[in-house]
């Protein structure tokens, strides 16, 4: 029997992987993908608890998150594309203009 604890462990594992990916990788595309992991970790939690408590609100939230993640991906990829055209790179370390 799969209990919410399993789901939460899975989601925590995905979240940690995502956070580490955001922190350590230099490629923006990879960072983006890691953010997707984080979001989906949240989605797993929402769906798991929706099932546990027989309540549809969690699923609705998850669909919202997917929709927002899609929009975010579209905007983010656009920015990345524009940045790439400017700098010929997608290395996050090169994006350091916002400093004194």
């Amino acid at each position, binding site marked *: 029997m799969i209990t919410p604890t399993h789901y939460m462990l899975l989601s925590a594992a995905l979240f940690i992987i995502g*956070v580490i990916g*955001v*922190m350590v990788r230099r490629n923006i595309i990879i960072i983006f993908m890691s953010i997707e992991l984080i979001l989906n970790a949240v989605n797993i939690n929402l769906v798991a608890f929706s099932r546990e408590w027989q309540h549809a609100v969690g699923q609705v939230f998850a669909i919202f998150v997917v929709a927002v993640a899609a929009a975010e991906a579209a905007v983010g990829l656009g920015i990345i594309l524009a940045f790439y055209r400017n700098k010929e790179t997608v290395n*996050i*370390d090169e*994006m*350091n*203009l*916002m*400093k*004194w």
Partner: protein
Amino acid sequence: MQYIWLIPLLPGLGALVNGLVGIRAFSRRTSGAVACATMIAALGVSLLAFWELLGLPADARAYDVTLASWIPAIPLQTQSGMGSLQVPWGFRLDPLSGLMILVVTGIGTLIHIYSTAYMAAEPRGGVARFFCYLNLFCFFMLVLVLGNNYLVMFVGWEGVGLCSYLLIGYWYQKKSASDAGKKAFITNRIGDWGFILGIFLVFYTFGTLDFRAVQNAAGAMRVESAGIGVLSIICLLLFVGAVGKSAQIPLYVWLPDAMEGPTPVSALIHAATMVTAGVYMVGRNAVLFSHAPTVMLIVAVVGVLTALFAASIGLVQYDIKRVLAYSTVSQLGYMFTAMGVGAFSAGAFHLMTHAFFKALLFLGSGSVIHAMGGEQDMRRMGGLKKYLPVTYATMVIGTLAIAGIPPLSGFFSKDEILFRSFEANKAIWALAVVTAMMTAFYMFRLLSMTFFGAYRGPAWEGAHRVGAHLAADPHDHGHAAAAHGAQDSQAGHGHGHGAWHGPHESPNAMTYPLMALAVGAIVAGFVGIPTALYGGNTIEHFLEPSFTAEEVRLKPDTTTETTTGTTTETATATGTLAATETTTGAAAVTEAESVRSVRLQPDQAPETPEAEESHALLELGLMGFSVLIAAIGIGVAWKLYVTSPEIADQLAERFAGAHRVLSNKYYVDELYDATVISGTMAGGRGLWAVDRNVIDGAVNGTGWVTIISSWFSGLTDRTVVDGLVNLVGRVVEAGSVVFRRLQTGLVQNYALVMLFGIFAFVSIYLFMRAGTL
């Protein structure tokens, strides 16, 4: 006679038209016509007014017209508490001003007509300017003589001074002319200073400036026979004004220089009218002056000394106009002598006759100068009799008149003065007689040098070929006799066509006024034939009311009707002098008579028939004597300048020292230069030094103080105020050194910090939840 204000206004209108429009637009003929028309109109009005005046009874011949209010009422301190200065634009026609307006408009008209021809060669705008000034002069002169109070008179007085300045400097491009104008103006200013102070004192004393009121008030005051009282001071100050205007010692120096003006100006202003304003003014204040015997003596002495002094200078001058100028000064001296010995009407009579013959002589000299193409030096004239017959004939009449040959006008007026001064003071009479001889001499010298003998002037084309090129053509040489070293005040003179064709008679517009004036010079004296010659001395009786206070004149009629009570009142009111002669309670008429006799000159006291007869004999004797004196003067001049001219040169050589002193006018100009003028200049320079060092120093010092203090102020601003502001900036900058390190610009740094932050918050939350915190 309500219309008498028109008399000054008409020439004023002419001046306005010529000044505003004429200078730009009028032709020579038009501007002359405008000026002459206004003068003729003024003459017509004057004659009408005079005729009406004659129609009045003798005691009522005074008419006041108040045209407009001028100074409404200004409270001012006077001797008797607060007074109120009220001055209207008032005119007064009485015998004296009536005589003066006839002289001014009559002679003025003739001179205007003469000027149309004399100034014909001037540039167009210049002619209009000339007539504008000349009309303006007549306006002011008529205001002067018609004004019924001191202030209106003063307006005219200053106005004629201004016009005199403008007309002397008519040829203003010439330095000598503009200098002469300035000299006249400044010298007159000294006199005006006395006049205005006199007016102040009149107001302070009497509380009014109206002639009639002052006259009547002064008539009631004590005669200041001993010492100097307020009336004496007033008279002295007024006389200073008269000395300036009428060119008496010591202020006469401007008049000879004033000859720089055009000759008609010299005739009108500097012979006939303006210079007699001083005499008129003394006559106008006759009541005041006769109450100040000390000042009267000063007037007489100044007058006779001036007469003698100026006549002696006139003996040796060569410039034809200068001779006449000194003659004018001398004749004005005569008039003041007359005023000074109390013969006011004789002075005014001489003023009138002098106006005729002196205007005639000046215009005649103008005609001569015109004929000679600008030459004024008599040494370059001579023998002009045959070229200028009309001028010659009229000049002879004028000369005989001034020399005092009966029955020409000068004889009657001059003898009246001589007779009256003989009665008053033998020394003054003696000096006046010497002057009379000099007058006859220098006038005949002038006549001889100009009209008799051989022609000594420059040759002209058609006369002598040889030397014709040397003879200065007046047109090619700046229209003047400058080449001869003569005074070329008649610059621009001639006919406007080609060369000078030798001496020639002047046009009709010039000779007719000469003839009219010659008639005047002959007949003007007939109004003053003395009683000794079975004449009525009409003019003296005519003028007498102007020279006496009203109450005195009216007293014989009124006192007979008044009660004794009021009579004693009036007697005390008119002063204490009556009491000295009559005991209290004397008959009213006697008292009034005694007041009258003291007020007038002693010799006018009622006389017995025998005394009158001896008087008449004395007068006749004096007349004969002065005619003899004049004849001697004429004879000597004839001998020296016509029959044997070499004697004159010999005399000049023999008395070289005296001749030089006279030729140089007693070095008075030099004396004034050395004392008054250089003194004033030194004073001016001293004041300038004070100005530059003290005043400018103070101003500059203030500037420096401001500069220095502002430098300190700037320093404070820069260091303290700016320093504080900068300090704030620096502190902020220094603080930011640490904190800006936080902003790496690396996204992952920020994310890491956020992670730690969330971790920390969550940890705190969890710990708090667990109750371990």
